[in-house]
């Protein structure tokens, strides 16, 4: 009996063990058409489990011990779905049919500045796939992308080169400046909206990551739902009209998928006077999914375009003009507005990416990307002629001094100047007619000489090829990621003659050297091998050099996941080298070589390949996260690394010679942060404290020095900076339709040490004056300690009320507050030499030994203002958006209407950036501080646009 019972029990247990599975399954369909959705990613939160739906939209996961679990269903063309269940042992929970609703086009086009370094036309929606931290819906990151972009906010204040951007797993931060060229995406937001985003130094599934975070834009043909979409938008920003067309085949039964897109953006005149926009973009994608293990994707895209720029301007110019949209870069030519600063850009890109799912636990990804960025910007040039800039300081009434302390006669002149400048476009804008006439006149009196005025075109092209290999493996609780990266970049920099403005020719010599060395025919040559070369339109002149950059890195990362604890650690080694190749032998470099004849010739080499400099730098990072339960989590991350200086920041004057910054060093970075996150049904959010320390940084600066009366290149080295602050965000679902989101950050991003300043004259006149043996006299201290960085507001906060209503209505109103923005300071104003001038002037004034009608107290205030870093105004911006999706033809087509109204209060007092001028007002005779005209070189500003809107109508068919 007992034996039979034991046998029965054994059999029962056997059946239980071998016949009962635990897990979950379901089918995902398009919520509008009911069709099955393949390639929908299913992520089990906090459990390192993910899968994809098959061609029939079916998914299944077999797993014991799931317990209470939550799953995210994610597809780039659809809104996320979150659901969950309680797993019972021996049961496969059936979710049944889960419907995903098509995405509403995200139309929060971030504000576009026509300055190339700020060109950012991407939207900020973020999704993660397989990221165990699920920062897909990080409340703070979303707010930072959408709410703060109008004020050019930078996450944690870092420069853009500290954030890594990938496209289909290929790294696209350029080798020369370390930045990602957002304008290469051509504004085709919907084709590049799907991203893996890694928050700051946290663990990444596609690369090592960076202190500013990383994102991998995933743009493959299979990721786009079948169908066509067209949209038309009207706006009043840098462009006024936008049209897009996107087509996708979806994943075909053959395993192929194709997609394509076109975009056109245009304005005759943008928000700023005299600006314009004309840009066309294309995209083609093809993907072959051979089977469940292999897929190959090829995409190519590009966006040739032209746009007219606007400039930072003084407050005086804005006040005289009457609004913040003053732009000195344009003028009337024959009754038409002509902009002198036209940017032409085209960055065609091709990316081939291959994915091999080795088995259910291992993946290998390879990507090869190549692009050729053609970028140029025009500018007025002039020779032995009146400065054509309408806002040149001598053309402004403030040049006469402070009107409050003027005699009546001078005040009368001041008012005349103000009046004529404000009301006559031939004064406040470029007088093109007069420039042409000057050249025609010159053709008469000096037919073989240089034209007086020209439009030159400065080219900064970059050809780059990138290779990335990434391995991902899961072994029980261990996830291994490793990768190799290789990059070759060739920067090509030169000027061409864009328009001779009626002149006969331009002679390729440097006029400033001509002024300082009138009897030296060599030094004035831009190319000694072609002296006094006659330049016609289209010819290269001025300077011509290439920068060859090679970069390679290898990294490995381990992640451990336990029930309550996650741990990761990673290391990377990077090789980075750069070498200048001069294609012209500049006369000034010859002068330097002769002056410093005991130095190695290559130090001042101009023509040919210069010194190849390389760095091998390590990086280490680690992080720990403790999960109290499925809803509360605390984490900490640390990163320590050495980072090579970028090629662009390593030379004193790379346009003319190979001379590098002395004592060039790798930057040292130490970064750490601590976060608390919570996710409940109705409320979720995050609180983070962070700090990053930089050491051994270098910066370069160029300006005209009135004391030495020549153009100066100033390098700062030994810079130390500290970025620290807190980030907080929470979103509360008030009802099924309303949610409230609050987000903010308080930061303190500043220089924590003084820097070593070394000045060098562009044409050697200063070095000649002091003598090669006294070159150390050009070394100074720049009092940078305590100054702030200038990467946007260091205090940001927003409150947004969001409505998602029935019948596909949605709306949002939000208010954002910005503070702690600081203007870019000029190092020339804070050297010990400059302070010597201030000290002497203060002493003179306080002792009463000065000659001025301006009261002493005012002069003293002005001296302080001269050396101070300006804090920019704080303020509030309010934005409203609403829209609706209308389904047509039995839900097979849809129309979505989206209206964004930004800065509805038309706050035109917000300054987004600008700079302090490098010149210091001095007396012409003894170079002491000119206390009677301390406001001669005021700060220049970029303002945030007032009320602006974006109305988009999209049609899906």
């Amino acid at each position, binding site marked *: 009996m007992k034996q039979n019972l034991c046998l029965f029990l054994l059999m029962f247990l056997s059946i239980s063990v071998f016949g009962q599975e635990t897990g979950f399954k379901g089918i995902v369909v398009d919520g509008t058409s009911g069709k099955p959705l393949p390639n929908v990613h299913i992520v089990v939160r906090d459990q390192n489990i993910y899968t994809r739906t098959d061609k029939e939209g079916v998914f299944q996961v077999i797993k014991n011990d799931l317990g209470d679990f939550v799953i995210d269903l994610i597809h780039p063309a659809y809104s996320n779905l979150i659901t969950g269940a309680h797993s019972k042992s021996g049961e496969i929970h059936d979710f049944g049919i889960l419907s995903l609703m098509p995405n509403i086009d995200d139309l929060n086009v971030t504000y576009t500045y026509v300055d190339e370094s700020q060109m950012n036309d991407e939207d900020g929606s973020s999704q993660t796939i397989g990221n165990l931290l699920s920062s897909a819906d990080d409340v703070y990151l979303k707010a930072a992308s959408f709410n703060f972009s109008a004020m050019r906010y930078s996450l944690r204040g870092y420069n853009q080169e500290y954030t890594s951007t990938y496209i289909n797993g290929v790294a696209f931060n350029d080798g020369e400046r370390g930045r990602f060229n957002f304008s290469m995406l051509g504004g085709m937001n919907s084709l590049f909206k799907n991203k893996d985003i890694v928050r700051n130094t946290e663990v990444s599934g596609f690369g090592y990551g960076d202190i500013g975070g990383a994102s991998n834009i995933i743009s493959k043909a299979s990721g786009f739902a079948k169908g066509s979409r067209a949209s038309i938008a009207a706006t009043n920003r840098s462009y006024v009209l936008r049209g897009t067309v996107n087509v996708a085949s979806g994943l075909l039964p053959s395993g192929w998928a194709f997609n394509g897109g076109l975009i056109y953006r245009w304005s005759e005149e943008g928000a700023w006077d005299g600006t314009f926009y004309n840009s066309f973009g294309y995209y083609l994608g093809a993907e072959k999914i051979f089977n469940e293990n292999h897929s190959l994707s090829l995409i190519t895209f590009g966006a040739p375009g032209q746009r007219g720029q606007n400039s930072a301007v003084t407050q005086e110019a804005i006040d005289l003009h009457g609004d913040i949209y003053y732009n000195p870069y344009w003028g009337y030519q024959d009754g038409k507005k002509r902009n002198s600063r036209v940017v032409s850009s085209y960055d065609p890109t091709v990316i081939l990416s291959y994915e091999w799912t080795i088995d259910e636990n291992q993946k290998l990804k390879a990507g090869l990307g190549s692009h050729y960025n053609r970028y140029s910007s025009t500018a007025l040039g002039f020779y032995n002629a009146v400065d054509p800039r309408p806002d040149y300081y001598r053309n402004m009434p403030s040049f006469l001094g402070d009107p409050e302390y003027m005699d009546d006669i001078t005040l009368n002149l001041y008012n005349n100047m103000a009046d004529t400048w404000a009301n006559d476009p031939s004064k406040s804008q470029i007088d093109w007619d007069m420039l*042409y006439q000057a050249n*025609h006149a010159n053709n008469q009196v000096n037919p073989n000489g240089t034209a007086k005025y020209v439009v030159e075109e400065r080219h900064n092209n970059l050809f780059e090829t990138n290779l990335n290999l990434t391995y991902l493996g899961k072994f029980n609780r261990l996830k291994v990621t490793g990768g190799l990266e290789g990059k070759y970049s060739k920067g090509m920099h030169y000027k061409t003659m864009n328009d001779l403005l009626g002149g006969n020719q331009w002679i390729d010599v440097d006029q400033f050297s001509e002024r300082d060395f009138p009897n030296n025919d060599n030094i004035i040559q831009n190319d000694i091998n072609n002296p006094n070369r006659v330049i016609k339109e289209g010819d290269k002149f001025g300077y011509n050099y290439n920068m060859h950059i090679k970069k390679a890195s290898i990294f490995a990362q381990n992640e451990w996941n336990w029930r309550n604890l996650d741990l990761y650690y990673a290391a990377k080694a990077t090789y980075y080298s750069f070498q200048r190749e001069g294609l012209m032998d500049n006369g000034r470099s010859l002068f330097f070589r002769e002056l410093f004849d005991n130095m190695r010739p290559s130090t001042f080499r101009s023509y040919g390949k210069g010194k190849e400099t390389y760095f091998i730098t390590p990086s280490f990072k680690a992080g720990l996260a403790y999960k109290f339960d499925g809803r509360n989590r605390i984490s900490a991350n640390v990163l320590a690394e050495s980072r090579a200086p970028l090629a662009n920041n390593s030379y004193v004057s790379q346009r003319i010679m190979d001379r590098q910054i002395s004592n060039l060093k790798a930057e040292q970075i130490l970064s750490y942060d601590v976060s608390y996150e919570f996710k409940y049904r109705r409320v979720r959010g995050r609180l983070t404290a962070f700090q990053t320390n930089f050491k051994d940084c270098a910066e370069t600066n160029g300006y005209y020095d009135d004391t030495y009366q020549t153009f100066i290149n100033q390098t700062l080295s030994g810079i130390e900076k500290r970025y620290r602050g807190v980030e907080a965000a929470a979103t509360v679902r008030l009802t099924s339709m309303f949610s409230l989101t609050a987000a903010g950050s308080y930061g303190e991003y500043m220089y924590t040490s003084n820097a070593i300043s070394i000045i060098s004259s562009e044409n050697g006149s200063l070095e000649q004056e002091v003598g090669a043996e006294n070159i150390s006299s050009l070394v100074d201290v720049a009092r940078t300690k305590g100054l702030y960085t200038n990467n946007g507001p260091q205090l940001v906060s927003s409150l947004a009320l969001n409505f998602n209503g029935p019948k596909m209505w949605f709306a949002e109103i939000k208010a954002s507050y910005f503070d702690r923005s600081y203007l870019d300071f000029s190092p020339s104003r804070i050297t010990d030499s400059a302070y010597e001038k201030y000290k002497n002037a203060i002493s003179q004034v306080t002792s009463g030994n000065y000659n001025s009608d301006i009261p002493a107290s005012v002069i003293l205030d002005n001296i302080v203002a001269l050396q101070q870093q300006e804090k920019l105004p704080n303020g509030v911006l309010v934005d409203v958006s609403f829209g609706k999706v209308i389904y047509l033809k039995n839900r097979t087509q849809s129309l979505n209407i989206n209206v964004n109204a930004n800065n509805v209060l038309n706050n035109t007092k917000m300054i987004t950036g600008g700079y302090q001028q490098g010149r210091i007002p001095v007396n012409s005779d003894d170079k002491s501080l000119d206390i009677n005209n301390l406001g001669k070189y005021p700060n220049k500003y970029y303002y945030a646009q007032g009320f602006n809107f974006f109305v988009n109508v999209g049609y899906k068919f």
Partner: protein
Amino acid sequence: MKSLNKILLASVSFILAFSSCQYEDKFDELPAQKYDPLQDNIEATMTCKEMRDLYIGNAQYLLTENSHSNNYAKMFNVSAIPENAEAIIRGIVVSTDVDGNTYKKIVIRDEKDGSGLDISIDASGLSAFWPQGQRVAINAAGLHIGDYANFPALGYQTYNRKRDRYEVGRLPFTIAKDHIKALGLPDTLLSQPEEVTIDEIMNNKEYYYSRLVKIKNVQFGYYMTSSTNPTPNHFQNNNIKLIDDIAQYDSDGDLIPDDENDDIPPFSIENDLNVPVSRAIKDANGKTTNVTTSFYAKFAAKKLKRGRHDVVAIVAWYKDKGSSSGNIQLLIQKFSDITPTTVQPETK
């Protein structure tokens, strides 16, 4: 298929729109504005000399007369030309700032009587808009005119804090643009110098003020402070040493090239007073006067020339204090204006 057609249409439209809007295609070269006497309806209401005579020192228009107790100030006064005055002059520009000896001013020769006038303007590179040979009309109403160091100039009053005096200062360029109109293209045939002798200039200085003159057959020289101190002096002194008299052979009897001969001074040198440097010229009649060159002129470092030359220059006068005797200053406009004399003198 219909969808594909629509997409193709959109593509073609985008491409066409983009291509047709290329920026450089939108702006044609502007033609030169040539001088057309039939279109020229600006009439001069006075000559340069009449303007000088009417306003300078005239109590009716005097804006500021500096205190006579200030030795420097006596030579500086400013008159205001009324805003409703009929004060239009016409002339040909005879100056050029290309070589840097003329700085922040233009000098015109009156179309009617050849009298000259300096116009002070606060900008470099003025010859781009108003080169030598450029016909201009100037409406001086609302501007200021006066003696600057005892020499007439048109500009705007400014206060020289260092010297404690009101002066005719430089017009801001934006204001000058409103008052000076260029008529057509320049013609250097219109700005040819008049031949004069040093004697003629010295005997009729005011007549020659701001005129472009040619003095033929001169030798360059410089000034000695005393026979025991042969260092060249900046300023005029009766003791002149001619360049031709400077020994040009070294101790071995070899010819020293001028460029290597340290005894030959350059046209100008940097000095603590930051003033232009005067050098002598002596004509065939033994009469002397000065050429005055700024240190910032392109030819400042060039050595004074040996031999006999013809010199073209603008006549200026400088007397900044009552106790000074004042100097004629001939301002060479272009280094190429110094040309070897073709006719050799019979006697030295």
